[in-house]
């Protein structure tokens, strides 16, 4: 057995001034070439553990540390981040703060230059890193002209350029659209396989990365709660903390199937030959509640990010009715934020109109930008302000410093700031939330979903999000933008099951139009299984309840039997998928 690359024994750590330890009693070993996914709720200690693995803890952050951390044979307590930098690279969540130089090439050259590499060796290493990440075209671009996804790729390349033996990633996909997020995950797997580099990836959206993981390590309140294979982790998560289970695992659990799938491919292998019913088409939900609260008519918006003006919205036509919960989706740069900013009156249209007759409140991507005072009560002064704070559950925290609030509380405070005073005697207008689930665990997303319901009861809610699973959970309508135009608009069942990138994990597993949630998918599996049995015994096909006990399912060759039920049951649920 090779020596472990990471060896942590009895690690405990407390940030300076903190009352509670961020990490406690951590024992962990990571072997060379291993791909480890770090799971856990917000505040469970994932980021702290990553910082301890690269020497930022304790050398940069200070605080109290005990136990032993060895990275590539170097004791992280004696060797700082610069010394460990040859063996370990870190990619953090916010790409803007991780890029130092003006051009991409200079950014990649910097670590090599600092270590005294000769120019030819530097040029080669930069070229190799750029090719590995498919970004040679970015090398001579200024970093201020890059999108968030491109910046994240540059930060990864800068961490890889020294060919470290270990790469640490702290929620690198949180700001990326599903396409860029999937690309990054599979890129990491390729680097892991081809370069033999060990990876520790902290991530909330586990359905994106379990398929590529060798092992999952789960943290709970700064302590190691689980370490094992992805399949074993899913079993553990369903038993201990269902918020950490993937939609695919919940689908299998509800359908009574085993083994739990680490990804779409594993799920399809288990489901091969199993019948899945096709859902009955549902009548489209009607929102005939008077005039629309948001209306765009042939709206064109132009932006200039320094490289010349370009049309970001190109003739958008849409209406949002009162009571609607709309998910606005699309790739980075598709125009989601621009549409919301134009609706809130921050950007003018160069042609056409965007109107919100009853007003539009926008919660920007970074709610902290709205928190300017040092006391919660000072953000919304007066009796009406206090009432607004009470409505969002912050009535007891009027004297708290906004920076001391939890992430969810800060978001609620920011929401109160943008909406307070807008509610008139009549129906309130539209509330736009721009990427509200960034860095959130599922429990907080559920909490957010509950507010969205509440907000939609008074007006309408438009949420720009890359989080397909969240959109499936809260929205009753999904609008997909592409290059500034509406490319799809309809109910979530239809939009989030008809493609690959903008589709939920359940939709990708079942590849059946209309099945996007674990509950719906489990019902279809159960109904398909029942219809097959019913057809075989000549009884009427009535959809059964979801079975309660798990069934160990072996793939069987039942394709011929499936033909008997005349197209209701697909012969191969995995067919037609690229």
């Amino acid at each position, binding site marked *: 057995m090779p020596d472990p690359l990471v060896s942590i024994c009895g690690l405990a750590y407390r940030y300076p001034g903190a009352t509670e330890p961020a990490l406690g009693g951590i024992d962990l070993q990571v072997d060379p070439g291993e791909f480890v996914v770090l799971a856990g709720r917000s505040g469970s200690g994932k980021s702290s553990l990553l910082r301890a693995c690269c020497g930022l803890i304790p050398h940069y952050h200070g605080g109290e540390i005990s136990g032993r951390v060895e990275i590539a044979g170097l004791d992280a307590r004696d060797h700082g981040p610069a*010394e460990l930098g040859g063996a370990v690279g870190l990619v953090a969540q916010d790409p803007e*703060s991780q890029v*130092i130089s*003006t051009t991409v090439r*200079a950014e990649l050259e910097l*670590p090599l230059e600092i270590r005294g590499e000769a120019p030819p060796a530097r040029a080669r290493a930069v070229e190799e890193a750029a090719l590995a990440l498919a970004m040679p075209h970015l090398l001579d671009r200024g970093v201020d002209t890059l999108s968030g996804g491109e910046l994240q790729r540059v930060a990864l390349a800068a961490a890889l350029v020294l060919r470290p033996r270990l790469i640490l990633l702290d929620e690198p996909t949180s700001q990326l659209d599903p396409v860029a997020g999937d690309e990054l995950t599979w890129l990491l797997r390729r680097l892991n396989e081809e370069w033999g580099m060990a990876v520790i990836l902290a991530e909330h959206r586990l359905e994106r990365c379990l398929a590529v993981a060798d092992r999952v390590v789960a943290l709970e309140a700064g302590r190691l709660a689980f370490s094992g294979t992805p399949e074993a982790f899913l079993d553990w998560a369903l038993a201990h903390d269902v918020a950490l289970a993937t939609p695919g695992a919940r689908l299998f659990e509800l359908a009574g199937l085993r083994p739990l799938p680490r990804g779409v491919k594993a799920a399809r292998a288990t489901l091969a030959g199993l019948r899945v019913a096709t859902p009955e088409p549902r009548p489209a939900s009607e929102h005939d509640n008077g005039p629309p609260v948001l209306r765009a008519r042939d709206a064109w918006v132009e932006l200039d990010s320094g490289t010349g003006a370009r049309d970001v919205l190109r003739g958008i036509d849409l209406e949002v009715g009162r009571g609607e919960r709309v998910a606005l989706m699309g790739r980075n740069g598709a125009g989601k934020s621009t549409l919301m900013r134009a609706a809130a009156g921050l950007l003018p249209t160069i042609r056409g109109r965007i109107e919100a007759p009853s007003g539009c409140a926008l919660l920007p991507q970074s709610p902290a*930008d709205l928190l*300017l005072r040092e006391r919660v009560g000072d953000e919304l002064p007066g009796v009406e*302000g206090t009432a607004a704070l009470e409505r969002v559950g912050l009535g007891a925290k009027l004297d708290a410093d906004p920076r001391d609030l939890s992430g969810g509380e800060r978001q609620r405070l920011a929401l109160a700031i943008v909406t*307070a005073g807008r509610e008139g005697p009549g129906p309130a207008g539209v509330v736009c939330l721009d990427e509200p689930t960034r860095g959130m665990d599922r429990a907080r997303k559920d909490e957010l979903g509950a507010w969205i319901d509440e907000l939609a009861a008074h007006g309408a809610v438009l949420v720009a999000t890359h989080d397909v699973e969240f959109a499936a959970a809260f929205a009753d309508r999904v609008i997909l933008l592409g290059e500034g135009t509406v490319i799809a608009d309809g109910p979530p069942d239809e939009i989030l099951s008809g493609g690959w990138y903008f589709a939920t994990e359940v939709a990708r597993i079942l590849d059946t139009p209309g099945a996007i949630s674990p509950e719906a998918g489990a019902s279809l599996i159960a109904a398909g299984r029942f219809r097959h049995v019913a057809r075989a015994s000549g009884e009427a096909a009535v959809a059964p309840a979801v079975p309660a006990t798990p069934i160990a399912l072996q793939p069987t060759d039942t394709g011929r039997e499936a033909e008997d039920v005349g197209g209701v049951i697909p012969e191969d649920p995995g067919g037609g998928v690229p």
Partner: protein
Amino acid sequence: MRPALAYRHRPGPLGDGSALAASLFCAAPAGAALVSSDPIVLAGALAAVVTAGLLAGARRGLALAARWNLGLGVILIAVNGLTSQRGDTVLVHGIVMPLIGNVDISAEALGEGAVLAARIGIICMAFAVHATTVDPDRVLRLLRPIARRSALTATLIARTVPLAARDYARLGEASALRGPLAAPAGRAVLARRLVAGSLDRAVDVAATLELRGYGHGAPGRADRLRRSRHDTALVGSALALFLASAGARLAGLADFRAYPALRFDAGAWTIAAALAMPLAAAAPFALAALRSRIVGGRSRA
């Protein structure tokens, strides 16, 4: 919208030249303005910096620097006019100013202020051309082996200033989103929030620098003097520019005296030196264009 003074790579002698040569070229008109106060030489230095800026594609940076300096220049002229009570040509007599009392405004005092404003303006415009056309990474790379701590500070500033500009734009936008009941976001509140945020940003950037290995030891000097094909022209032009001003001064030409009456040299040699400056500034660009044309002609043939 990208800030007017932000660096963007522009192909050409300044964009592609080595950091040292490009910096010398940009410093030459500033040096000329420092050594000479003759209005004709200053006009030549101004023409040189404008020529270089326009040919290098730094029009927005130049325009911004010119706008700032116009305001500053007016203030300098006014202050000098009010505070310097010398000069034979009194334009306005006996203005009663609070605290100062009776003041005269002379043409000489205004002229001296204008010359001072022109010198500062030329230096600022030369730095604007440098900031927008010369890659700061290459300048910092030049500095790092000789002034490590200063280079670290400059690196932090070079990164945190654009981040702060972006943060300020975001904060401004967020303040426009506040509901009617929210406390208003004044400039002071925004500035305080920006400073607090910038400190956090600086800490993050410093952590990244640490991870990139900044604490590892002195960087190598291997390519500190990496050269470019434009360097000879840039350095030659910089020398010619500076010598036109310094030579005229050393030769006793290009003399300027504000008091007791405005007097400056407008002889043929001074005018020739002033005319030579924009020509020297244009030379590297003309040579590069000529070379491209010749190479293009050969490849077509």
